[in-house]
């Protein structure tokens, strides 16, 4: 299961989706909207995604995990829109027969999502806002 959603992420659904008879361990990653960024108090975040491409990139990550660890029961859900402090922006659940592979593959999944999946966040704070990444080069 891998998808982009606009409402609250159903974590139970994601965990259930990967709980199969061969499961011995399920490792989850719960990405939370943090209330501070570089010393500033963040009011809320807004996420934007190229949803169709993001979902196909997630599918590629699922295939990579299969190639590396022979695991196929993986759930990845990313939320878009306005998110409040403390809410879940991304949730991953990886199931494996044994815990070591589940930990490794879950770490791999979130690192790959952050690097390659076209999803952006805007930080909104008292008196300003900024899309993260847009402050580069001469802008």
């Amino acid at each position: 299961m891998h998808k982009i959603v606009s409402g609250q992420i159903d974590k139970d659904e994601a965990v259930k989706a990967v709980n199969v008879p061969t499961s011995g361990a399920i490792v989850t990653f719960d990405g939370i909207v943090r209330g501070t960024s570089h010393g500033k108090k963040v009011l809320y975040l807004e996420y934007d995604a190229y949803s169709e491409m993001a979902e196909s990139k997630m599918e590629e990550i699922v295939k990579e995990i299969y190639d590396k660890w022979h695991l196929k029961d993986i759930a990845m859900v990313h939320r878009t829109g306005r998110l409040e402090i403390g809410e879940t922006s991304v949730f991953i659940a990886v199931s494996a027969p044994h815990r070591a592979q589940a930990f490794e593959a879950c770490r791999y999944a979130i690192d790959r999502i952050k690097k390659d999946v076209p999803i952006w966040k805007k930080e909104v704070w008292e008196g300003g806002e900024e899309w993260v990444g847009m402050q580069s080069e001469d802008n």
Partner: protein
Amino acid sequence: MKVKLLFFAGFRDVVGSKEIVREIPEGWSVLDLWNDIADRYPKLRGFSKSIMNSVNREYVKPDRALKDGDEVAFIPPVSGGGHA
């Protein structure tokens, strides 16, 4: 020929729309299209080195030749990076 251009996040704020259709000359590459867009929206020019390009939802190099009906996106830096 016509291509569809998609804008996200900060680029959408600069361009003021999520999607535009552009008539372009045969033989243009992704880079030709980027240069044309960056001429129209000079605020984007500064991102020439940090963008990624996609055609039909796959990352491509800037020299990729465009075809009629392609869906092109100039991908701003994604929000990943260090502080997870």
